[in-house]
């Protein structure tokens, strides 16, 4: 039983790690698309900010990276 668990854990680890991939600079065309931008809709952002501030007295903290060209 212990072996099976160990083998399964190992298998799952390999499977998960093989999912890691580096996006090369020349492969970022989809990430560079306008629709990938987190700040593409100002109205949605202002409404969300208002909601978070009203409910949780929280504001800011939107500087999260992710999409974009990644150029230069």
């Amino acid at each position, binding site marked *: 039983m212990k072996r099976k668990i160990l083998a399964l854990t*190992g298998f799952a680890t390999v499977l998960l790690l093989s999912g890691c991939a580096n996006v090369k600079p*020349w492969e970022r065309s989809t990430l560079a698309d306008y629709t990938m931008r987190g700040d593409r809709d100002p109205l949605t952002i202002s409404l969300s900010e208002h909601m978070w501030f009203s409910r949780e007295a929280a504001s800011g903290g939107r500087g999260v990276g992710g999409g974009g060209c990644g150029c230069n």
Partner: protein
Amino acid sequence: MNMSLVKKSLFTGVLALSVLATSAFAGGKPIKVGDTFPDLTTFGLEGKLPAELKGKVVLLDFWASWCGPCKESFPVMEELHKKYADKGLVILAVNVDETAAAMKDFLKEHPATFAIVHDATKKLVGTANISSMPSSFVLGTDGKVVAVHKGFHGKDTVKEYETEIEKLLSAVVAKQ
């Protein structure tokens, strides 16, 4: 603890690490200053390569239509081409867009008279393994890399280009 269990655990660990290492370090060694740039005819590039690259100073630039700084670099390369083509500079812009159509759309808006080819298979860019878009290489007359530029930083990059190109071209003139 059972020995075979230890062995299995070790094997799994090594396998996991190797998979991680493969995914993290995929691609060749980046081309650096002093390296001889690979023969461009072996990469199946779409488009017409300049007839003669041997004995020429070459500015080879990797670009894409979706890349903002590439748009800024195009007028600069056009100026450099007009200024130095007669003196022996060849500019070759290698496009790495997914489709040739995207490249053509870009070129309609940013026309250029220097040589442009499409690296559809991404073999050349993969071999160069550039770390930033755009990236450019200044090659001497012997085909060796004299300078590598990561990104395009406006006037700073232009100044560097001009200094390097003029230095190489004056060396050509001195030899003649």
